[in-house]
């Protein structure tokens, strides 16, 4: 067991090292991309439309825009190496501070959405695979086909219409908590966890109600690929010899399905879940906009529209890093789900 674990860590480490060039590429690529953005940010951040030439020149110097681009790039890389992502002109804060404040909101949303998606997709896929060609199977297929066709921003808005306007079950769809609510002391930044730690059940419930609609609208879009891969993978696994053997020795059917078939069918599902997670990070932009969610994606979008370079670069770097970490987690999960992977 220890050997397998060590091997998993080794493999994950190798994968991490091989992803570093890609991360570096991302860094340089966003830097160059941001430098061709139209509009002069110095003019944008000057005091007003009639700011003097000198004032603009001062801001340009302050932002380092007067230096040649290669030198700017080297300075930027040096700063990033020291963990300094620059300062946002919009908020006046360090980009790292802004991102750290807002990242938990995005992650809480994305994790909840992923959890909802997996918890609903895996049973759906298993049910469909147990009786291929049945009404359930076709129902799941139809649901999947429709699910990937509705854009997240449309399903989000329709959920607001139904649960906020028609039924009155959901709270006002803006932000993570009611503006008058008192926040728990911030320990993790994840409101659901912080409320629990503070023992404030009422606050937890309020935060949960704010979270559920955006999370569901994000989950709806990704249930389909997860359910489809579960079904396909379960079909293979259910048709295999070990399942026949397990059945023939008279094990209860749920044990055959869950312990034998599903455990063996889970590898492709983990892969797809990793891919789905990074798609969701992109889709965050849309959902955060619909629900005025104070996450990193909406922050980057505002910065992008204001030609504020540093936050956008920081955001893309953050997303790429999260992506790398997710791939690592997938690797480790792979090793746990199927120890054979680590040997080869």
């Amino acid at each position, binding site marked *: 067991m220890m050997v397998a674990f060590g091997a998993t860590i080794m493999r994950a480490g190798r994968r991490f090292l091989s992803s570093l060039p890609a991360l570096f590429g991302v860094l340089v690529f966003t830097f160059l991309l941001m430098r*061709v*953005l139209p509009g002069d940010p110095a003019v944008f951040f000057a005091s007003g439309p009639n700011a003097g030439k000198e004032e603009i020149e001062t801001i340009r110097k302050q932002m380092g825009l007067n230096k040649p681009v290669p030198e700017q790039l080297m300075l930027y890389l040096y700063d990033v190496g020291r963990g300094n992502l620059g300062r946002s002109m919009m908020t006046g804060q360090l980009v790292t501070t802004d991102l750290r404040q807002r990242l938990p909101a995005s992650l809480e949303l994305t994790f909840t959405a992923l959890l909802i998606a997996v918890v609903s997709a895996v049973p759906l896929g298993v049910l469909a695979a147990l009786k291929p060609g049945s009404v359930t199977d076709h129902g799941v297929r139809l649901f999947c086909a429709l699910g990937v066709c509705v854009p997240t921003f449309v399903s989000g808005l329709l959920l607001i219409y139904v649960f906020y306007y028609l039924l009155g079950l959901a709270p006002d769809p803006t932000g993570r908590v009611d503006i008058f609510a008192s926040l728990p002391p911030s320990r993790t930044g994840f409101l659901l966890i912080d409320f629990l730690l503070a023992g404030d059940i009422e606050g937890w419930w309020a935060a949960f109600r704010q979270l559920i609609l955006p999370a569901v609208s994000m989950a709806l879009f990704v249930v389909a690929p997860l359910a489809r891969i579960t079904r396909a993978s379960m079909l293979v696994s259910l048709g295999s010899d070990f399942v026949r053997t397990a059945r023939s020795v008279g094990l209860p059917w749920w044990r055959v399905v869950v312990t034998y078939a599903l455990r063996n069918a889970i590898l492709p599902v983990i892969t797809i879940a990793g891919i789905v997670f990074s798609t969701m990070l992109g889709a965050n932009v849309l959902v955060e906009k619909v629900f005025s969610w104070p996450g990193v994606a909406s922050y980057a979008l505002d910065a992008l529209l204001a030609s504020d370079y540093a936050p956008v670069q920081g955001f893309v770097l953050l997303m790429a890093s999260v992506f790398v970490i997710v791939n690592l987690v997938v690797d480790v999960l792979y090793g746990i789900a199927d120890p054979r992977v680590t040997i080869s």
Partner: protein
Amino acid sequence: MTGATLRHAGWILRGNPLTGVAAAGIFLLMAVAMLGPLIVPYDPIVSDVPQALMPPSAAHIAGTDQLGRDVFSRLIVAARLDLAIAISAVGISFAIGAVIGAICGYTGGRLDRAVGRFVDVLMAFPLFVLAMAMVAALGNRVENIIIATAIINLPFYIRFARAEVNIRRNVGWVEAARACGDSHISVVLRFLLPNVLPAMAVQMSLNLGWAILNAAGLSFIGLGVKPPTPEWGIMVAEGARFISTGKWWLVAFPGLALMLAVLSFNLLGDGIRDILDPRMRT
């Protein structure tokens, strides 16, 4: 297409009638996109403020928006722009991606590794975020939505074409063509690419749906198409302001249009795959 292929297609259609429905849906979309402005009951741009925010009725079957414009007419006219963006983006990305991928798969070696790295970098981005940044960098215009969508589609085509060509580069008919004096370029363009095309058609059909969603998403967050141009993503964005006061039709109908378009392309892609290779059906 020979008689046998047609019979096979007919057999597939009986097994999966949805493919026929999808083909009909796409035919309808194309017709609407072409005839658009000729068949709409109202002008999609001119506002009629006294009629603003009316729910669906006999006169306005999909209601009116905040400026009193007929939602149904705007939906119909928008079809051309949305389809044009998706089709040109996927077309560009297919043309470039297939050739690059095929060359890489055929030659292998250093070029292949370099392109592989580039594709890895591209895939390391959350792709929607990349498209966002590109549209913002290149300027807020329709052409740039097309370019951005084409670029984020590119890695898939390069990988796909590379893999498909790579497994065929040593087969008998490639050797035969080489032995008959065909140049490498001719082998790739005249023999390998045509063989890869059917599989790529499936990919294209599926990607068209994705491209439509992407373009609509970009205009939803305020990048790309500008109001008052009718476009499905913008219509949803404009309707979003009125959803919490119950004006559902401003979001539901453009959403429905997007859904039907994407659904048709996805089902058609699945259908083509069934016709080409029944084993791949899931």
